[in-house]
């Protein structure tokens, strides 16, 4: 009867395969009208005037600017720093910054009206890329040992700089919400495609000056997020809410693909610099690392992205002397934001290319160099965290080599250049440092006469949250999986379980649910069979009207973290991974193609192996796209390729064969030993592919995407 480790049917799967699942654009409310955003057409400047064409018939339109924010509310998007307005007041700091909102019952009239609004600006000089950026939004340093002493011990110092471009999450369902004003005029409900209903609730409360009973946020079936629906929906929900309050009617705002591409967040472009002291035998003795991220025009979540990027910048390698300096720099471009991996893919791209460079300079095999330096149990990280227990860096590499080699194919003689590259990586599960303690997430279980209902604010965005949580609770209670259902993520019904991000939903929230289940069990008293569970439940319920068991995050006793010094246990546990990529490069056209990608990842315990593999395959392909195809072309501060015709993601015909192997090295504080899985698969493939291109062509690229133009340039320069 146990279901953990088994591939039970996805909880909401039948609704999805039959088309019954309702996404935000599938919903409609009586009297609903449609909203649209008027955005900045300059990268930086002062707003001189916003003019409406007097000849146009404005009857039936609702228009809203920053002055519509009610007294008691604030024109600030609630995030880390209070710098970003919902609607520009007198200045704009980036292209596509929202200035004015407009709504009408007829979407076609709405589109017409937008052409009759003119905004005049006094443009100011703008900084448009990382290369020219000087304003630092956030800076941090991680130190271990004595860097000078480390370099003094080195036989050789190897330097390198590595660059990654912006990447669009490209969920297939664009961002969208519907805001429904309350009849009392003092409350609002927002439905939408999102990862974090409680983030949206907090943002709306600050914007409208309302309390938590007055703002209700409901997540609708969400067509992919990947971080792109972590913080952005707060802004969109605020816009729809302002229009709904002004119009007194429900307002739907669903972005079309162009608006979603040009206006919403992307993965931070990054510049990673390494200076590494290394001994003749390959032992790393000193690592000096600089991580610079392009944060765009506002701070948003960049400080935490930087934190994760910096902590992962050493890769899974031990070194006695380390200094990582991380910075987020400001540019006049739309703010960058959360994207699966949250900075770690960028910084580990840097170290994994750099490791191959070191291996080459020392004349050591790149695998051997990694084996020499990979973390093992007992090693201490740059933040001073002693790793013990679930450390699988060596094991994932060994198993990847075995798996990949086993499937080796005969060499072909067709003139193509072939290479194989490797990358090893790790990924901390859950919020960084003291984040989980601050979050103090809650989740629980409601016992009903019919079944057990999960009350959890974590969202299903395709990754399998509902299924996996139900499995954890079913096995903890020793009842059938089918007896467990999940309440819709609705801030009026479920507690704040923290955001659905950071590979925390299984390990952290799953654990909270497990503890709630144990509380329930305690209340029931001992039972031997599911039927007995049911009998006892009914008995228990007869005595009390409602039975909820809500548990809160409980820090595993041995975790310590100091935010001031950036020292301590950065994460409760790490997932460990290895990618091996086979690449073909055409020497005539310089096009590179990844033909096979092996991914071996230790996730502690696969609650649902099929879903876990699906996460790894999907994340891997996103990284293949990032490595080879996906390029955000910026022109004058705006994304110039805002269409799926020219911002291209891999199709079925561009996809490598992906071989996945799960390693289960349990983490004692995770449910059934589980660690995080969602983000880790994005950390390695890009570096493995570029290392393979190096082997195939002899040229070293230090930037992605590795387009044929870049490969040609590098091969010409030889």
């Amino acid at each position: 009867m146990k279901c953990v480790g088994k591939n039970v049917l996805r909880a909401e799967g039948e609704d999805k395969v039959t088309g019954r699942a309702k996404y935000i654009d599938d919903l409609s409310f009586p009297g609903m009208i449609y909203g649209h955003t008027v955005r900045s057409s300059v990268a930086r400047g002062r707003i001189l005037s916003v003019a409406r064409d007097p000849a146009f018939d404005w009857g039936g339109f609702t228009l809203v600017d920053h002055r519509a924010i009610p007294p008691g509310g604030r024109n600030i998007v609630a995030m880390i720093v209070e710098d970003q307005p919902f609607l520009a007041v007198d200045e704009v700091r980036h292209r596509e910054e929202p200035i004015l909102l407009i709504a009408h019952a007829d979407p076609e009239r709405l589109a017409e009206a937008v052409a009759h609004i003119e905004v005049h600006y006094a443009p100011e000089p703008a900084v448009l890329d990382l290369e020219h950026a000087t304003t630092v939004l956030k800076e941090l340093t991680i130190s271990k040992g004595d860097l000078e002493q480390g370099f003094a011990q080195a036989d050789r110092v190897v330097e390198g700089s590595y660059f990654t471009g912006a990447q669009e999450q490209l969920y297939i369902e664009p961002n969208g919400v519907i805001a429904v004003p309350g009849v009392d005029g003092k409350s609002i409900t927002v439905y939408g495609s999102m990862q974090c209903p409680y983030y949206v609730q907090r943002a709306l409360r600050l914007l409208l000056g309302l309390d938590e009973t007055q703002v209700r946020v409901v997540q609708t079936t969400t067509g992919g997020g990947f971080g792109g629906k972590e913080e952005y929906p707060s802004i969109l929900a605020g816009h729809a809410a302002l229009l709904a309050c002004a119009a007194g009617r429900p307002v739907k705002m669903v972005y079309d693909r162009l608006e979603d591409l040009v206006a919403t967040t992307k993965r931070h472009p990054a510049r990673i610099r390494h200076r590494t002291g290394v001994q003749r035998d390959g032992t790393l003795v000193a690592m000096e690392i600089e991580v610079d991220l392009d944060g765009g025009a506002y701070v948003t979540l960049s400080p935490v992205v930087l934190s994760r990027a910096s902590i992962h910048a050493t890769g899974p390698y031990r070194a006695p002397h380390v200094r990582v300096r991380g910075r987020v720099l400001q540019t006049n471009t739309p703010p960058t934001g959360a994207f699966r991996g949250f900075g770690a893919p960028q910084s580990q791209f840097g170290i994994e290319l750099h490791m191959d460079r070191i291996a080459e300079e020392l004349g050591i095999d790149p695998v051997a160099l990694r084996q020499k330096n990979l973390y093992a149990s007992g090693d201490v990280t740059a933040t001073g965290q002693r790793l013990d227990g679930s450390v699988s860096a060596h094991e994932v590499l060994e198993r990847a080599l075995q798996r990949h080699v086993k499937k080796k194919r005969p060499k072909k003689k067709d003139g193509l250049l072939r290479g194989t590259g490797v990358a090893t990586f790790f990924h901390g599960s859950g919020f960084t440092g003291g984040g989980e303690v601050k979050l103090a997430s809650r989740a629980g279980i409601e016992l009903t006469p019919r079944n057990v209902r999960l009350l959890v604010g974590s969202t299903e965005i395709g990754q399998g949250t509902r299924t996996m949580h139900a499995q954890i609770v079913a096995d903890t209670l020793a009842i059938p999986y089918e007896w467990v259902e999940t309440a819709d993520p609705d801030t009026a019904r479920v507690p704040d379980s923290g955001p659905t991000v950071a590979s925390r939903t299984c390990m952290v929230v799953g654990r909270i649910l497990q503890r709630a289940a144990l509380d329930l069990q305690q209340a029931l008293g001992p039972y031997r069979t599911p039927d007995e569970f049911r009998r006892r439940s009914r008995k228990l319920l007869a005595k009390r009207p409602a039975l909820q068991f809500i548990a809160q995050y409980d820090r595993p006793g041995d975790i310590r973290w100091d935010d001031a010094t950036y020292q301590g246990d950065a994460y409760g546990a790490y997932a460990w991974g290895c990618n091996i990529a086979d690449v073909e490069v055409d020497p005539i056209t310089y096009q590179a193609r990844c033909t096979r990608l092996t991914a071996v990842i230790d996730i502690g315990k696969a609650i649902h192996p099929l879903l876990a593999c699906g996460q790894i395959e999907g994340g891997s392909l996103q990284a293949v796209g990032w490595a080879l195809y996906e390029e955000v072309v910026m022109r004058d501060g705006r994304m110039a390729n805002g269409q799926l015709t020219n911002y291209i993601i891999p199709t079925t015909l561009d996809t490598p064969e992906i071989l996945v192997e799960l390693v289960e090295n349990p983490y004692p504080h995770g449910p059934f030993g589980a660690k995080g899985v969602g983000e880790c698969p994005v950390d390695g493939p890009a570096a493995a592919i570029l290392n393979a291109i190096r082997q195939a062509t002899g040229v070293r690229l230090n930037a992605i995407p590795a387009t044929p133009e870049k490969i040609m340039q590098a091969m010409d320069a030889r």
Partner: protein
Amino acid sequence: MKITLTLNRKRRTVDVSPLERLLDTLRGALGLTGTKEGCGEGECGACTVLLDGKPVNSCLVPTAQCSGAAITTIEGLAPRGKLHKLQRAFLECGGAQCGICTPGMILAASALPDRPTREQIRTGLAGNLCRCTGYEKIYDAVGVALGTKK
């Protein structure tokens, strides 16, 4: 203008403006929201439906061009309350994650021949983007449903 077409084996008549997209007619007047819009430009395949048995992008087809045609959407693939073998396989093999591409993907797959090779599956689904799965589980599901894989 009035257009009569066969939708999921039933005759339906709708009043549409000449260039209304089939996607909007299906989701609007005909009330079937299982067909999704991902880009509105034929660049993602989320809106795939069968037009006289062949997959097309309903965001690029004017409803007026469908007079007398037979349209199949995800709602009409299997009799009510039953799952089509492709739907079942997508459910069992992990072919659907976020689900937004799933209806279009399943309809595109339904036009594949029996026992398709992996190459045929890849070619037949080349008009459908998926950002969640890496496509592997989708190939598995199609292979299982159409008899290539046990």
